[in-house]
């Protein structure tokens, strides 16, 4: 059984990250494990982990490389990071979380500041923004199956673009439900319904992530944060008040050379 890894530092987001990790672990039948890379006093991290009832491993080594190695451990199925310290932070996510997002070969959950909320209180509702490509839909499919398997309600979200728009709607009141059903069948068969919106995708998805009463947002992405890419991910991470599960699309991950770093030690 793989574990849900909660990466915590000494900052204020630790309890929220642990809370989300514990909730996800319970929901998916996995074990939760907290990790903390020693940079000084580990007391705050240990206290938070103890309070959450999650075992803690304190790691030694460079923070980024050590955490990435921990995330890459094959026993880890999912990693949870805090986004940033405060909602008003200048960047959507801190640099350590960003590195994990860009380079991890597995799904990473980003917990926004104050984003734990009433996480995973039934009925669990998961929002899945879709861009209407098979590749991106397939990337999140296994996670959707996991959440479906525990009775979560899947709500698909699609912001209509010139590329994805229905080509013809003779009478929207008749045709749009049919088109939506076809869309769901093609891209997210587990969805109970679909929320169609118009406008700029990054704004509309971010609005939905902020406003909709959901427990988790599931997004696939290319792990490419260069200019002109990942606008939706950036916007969602900036505005979401809900944890965001980001699933890398296979084959697009950036490879980070970790060989120069010394191995991490585990206490």
């Amino acid at each position, binding site marked *: 059984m793989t574990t849900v890894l909660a990466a915590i530092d000494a900052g204020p987001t630790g309890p929220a990250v642990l809370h989300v990790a514990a909730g996800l672990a319970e929901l998916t039948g996995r074990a939760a494990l907290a990790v903390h890379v020693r940079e000084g006093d580990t007391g705050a991290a240990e206290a938070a982990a103890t309070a959450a009832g999650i075992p803690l491993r304190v790691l030694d080594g460079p923070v980024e490389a050590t955490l990435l190695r921990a995330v890459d451990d094959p026993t880890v199925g999912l990693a949870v990071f805090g986004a940033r310290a405060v909602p008003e932070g200048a960047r959507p996510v801190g640099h350590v979380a960003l590195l994990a997002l860009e380079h991890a070969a597995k799904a990473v959950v980003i917990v926004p500041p104050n984003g734990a909320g009433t996480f995973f209180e039934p009925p669990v509702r998961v929002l899945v923004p879709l861009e209407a490509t098979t590749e991106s839909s397939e990337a999140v499919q296994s996670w959707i199956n996991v959440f479906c398997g525990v009775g979560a309600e899947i709500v698909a979200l699609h912001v209509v673009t010139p590329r994805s728009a229905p080509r013809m709607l003779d009478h929207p009141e008749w045709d749009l439900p*049919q088109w*939506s*059903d076809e869309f769901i069948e093609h891209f997210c068969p587990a969805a109970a319904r679909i929320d169609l919106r118009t406008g700029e995708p990054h704004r509309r998805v971010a609005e939905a992530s902020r406003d909709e009463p959901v427990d988790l947002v599931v997004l696939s992405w290319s792990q490419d944060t260069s200019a002109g890419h990942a606008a939706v991910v950036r916007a969602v991470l900036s505005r979401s008040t809900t944890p965001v599960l980001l699933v890398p699309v296979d084959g697009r991950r950036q490879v980070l050379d970790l060989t120069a770093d010394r191995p991490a030690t585990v206490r």
Partner: protein
Amino acid sequence: MTADRTFEALCCRWNPPDACSGAPEIRDRIEELCTFGVHVVVVSDLDPAMVAGQLLPHSEGRGSLHLCLPRVGQVHEVTSSGPSLRWRDGCDHRPEGYGALRWIAGWLAERGITGSLVLVVGDVPAASAAFDRAVVVDTAVERPRFQQILDEQLDRRRSGRVPSVDADPAWSIPLPIERLAEGAAEAIGTIGNGWAASRAVLEERVDGSGTFLVNGVFTGDAVPTLVGGSNWSSIAVRDASTTRSLDLRTGVLVRESADPPLRTFKLISAHRPHVLALRAEGSSNCLLVPGDDGATGERDAQVTSSGGRGGGGIVIATADRAQAVGDDRLVERLGAWAASPRGRPSDDVVQSLLADLEGAGFDRILAEHRAAWAERWSNAAISITGSPEDELSARFAVFHLLASAPDAGEAAVGPRGLTGPAYGGHVFWDADVFVLPALAAIRPSAARAMLEYRLRRLPAARAAALASGGRGARFPWESATDGTDVTPPIVTLSSGEDVLVRTDEHEEHIVADVAWAADEYTRWTGDTAFLTTAGCDLVLDTARWWAGRIRVGADGRAHLDHVMGPDEYHDEVDDNAFTNVMARWNLRRAAALADELGIAGDESSEWRLLADRLVDGFDPATGLYEQFAGYWDLEPLLAAQVAEPPFAADALLGTDRVDRSQLIKQPDVLMLHHMIPSETPPGSLEWNLDVYTARTTHGSSLSPAIHAALYARAGRPDDALPLFRMAARLDLDDITGTTASGLHLATMGGVWQALAYGFLGLRPTSRALEIDPRLPRSWDALELGLRYGQARARIRADHERLHLKCDAPVTLRLPGGLPHACPPPGATFELDDPDAPRRSP
């Protein structure tokens, strides 16, 4: 090559010292094949009496035995009373008897037997040439080989093996095989006869309810929908792949799987409207016969029913006969259905129908069905020389048109016909404006049944007019059983959002559309009695509605406020050009009809006066119509500035944004140039075509075909072709993403109209059939079969000539010419330089 095929016709040579002549074992086999419905043609150089004496006359054969004598150019049918002359060549000499054999080939084709359903045996080169794509066994065949072939054919029939189809790529539609396209495949492969239809559900599908639909049978809900009958073709099949094809020529659906072996073949009889038939054969580990895994024999009739409870109902009865043949299993199922728009028929009705089938048997039902489809196609032929792909997609459209409406009683034709549940099967303007004109030309009796649907709902339309403070008849935007408006007031989208529907309030042009359809029917069919008897109220009462509905302003001009045109992006406008001009046409047509009926008076004078006063938004200075009052003041957004058409602008931009722009969903002003060009100023098509096309998103499936027709009429057939193809492949490529819920039947009507009204430039009038072909450069020729007046006609145009074949006189009128009476068998005309500018509508 021939062992695993079923031939419906055998053509063999019979001359001493040929190996097969005179042998009793051959004669016996031919005799028996005839009893199974096979048509046997014997080609001989002998005296007919001598050959007939050698051949046993078939006694109760459902097939036929024909004697073809090429040397003397004669065809005799051999019956128990001897040979009787069926056809004699009028020419003194035909090399190799080509004419006689061609006649035989044509006779078989009229029974749906063509191509690979014909086996030619022996040294019969002329027969090989006459039977296109026939399977030919070499002349050197000896008696044992011929006998072996006959034995194979007899064995197949004795054991009830699955028949073959003429797998002609020009007539066969392979269904999509991808899992996610299964819904679309079910719709594309729908088989039907106009009264009823079955989607192409896989036999093993257990949740097949709702896949059998009957014309005009709706639920009793507040917003009724078509009652869904059960999957009558359900059979236990496991582990079979799904290669299916729809044979357009004969209206059968065939499924084949190589590993494990499985073949199924099913039809809804075009000859016996209430009859269903299926045969299946497969390996014992794939096809499980009904009852239990290995059972054989007959199974008691199974009866299923649907609907009722305040609405219509459907009852289906089926009876199976199963048997094992070696490692294979065979299942033959005959079925009967009955339905009622009010209540559920009793089981006794279908049991009785089923009992009647016992004497007929599958082979006869198949033969009748093939012949019925051949007869349908004889009035609806399509040939596009130079583009097999366009020809096939056009035939696909016409096939479903021919299967969309019954040819008796009344026909409630919804936007998706009987190919799916979309729109609840409600009847919209799609029926009157898009489907009916095509059927008026290729299946007039079905068009008449569509008009009967409107006629029988005149009382409801009159009541609706009265209820809204008007007079005459106001036909509803959506109707079902009783003719009241069944437009859903609110529709809940998948997102949970409720959408208010207002088409029923504002899309009043349907009132004039109904009148126009009645008039168009009479112009194609020459059935003028329709409008001077029962049908006259479709024109008169609709005119009365407009007369009461029109507001005359202080300026003395007449207006129609708060309406919606075909472009539904702008949902409540004043003086929509299409609505106003259609109303004007309706008023004038009614006034003329009143003259014909001898009832002209103050009322018809008022109609003419109002018609003359109606504003139409046309500006002579620019040559443009304004789509509605204030349209030019909207944001001048062009479709290409948003996305590449087709796209649904309302879904992409939102309804409010689109409402404030000049984007339109489909032809609105331009529908006038398509439907009633005589009501539009000469030369106005070109100007309006350019302006409005730039603003058209083609966000409606009704749009591309009409634009194609208009581009052809504007002398730009090459520009028309991509739009024609978009329409013709709309469902084959599932362009809308909604094909799974049913085929876009109105688009298919538009496809036919693009071919007839557009590329051939046909326009039926009371005095002549106007014609002005404009073919795309990539097409060598276009040929359509149709009925005009009393004549069955074939019209073929290439880039230089026009050919008319007809069996009754047809008056044609070419551009700028006088009407030209063409007696049978037809005439040929030289066409003008196709690049020369033509007079526009």
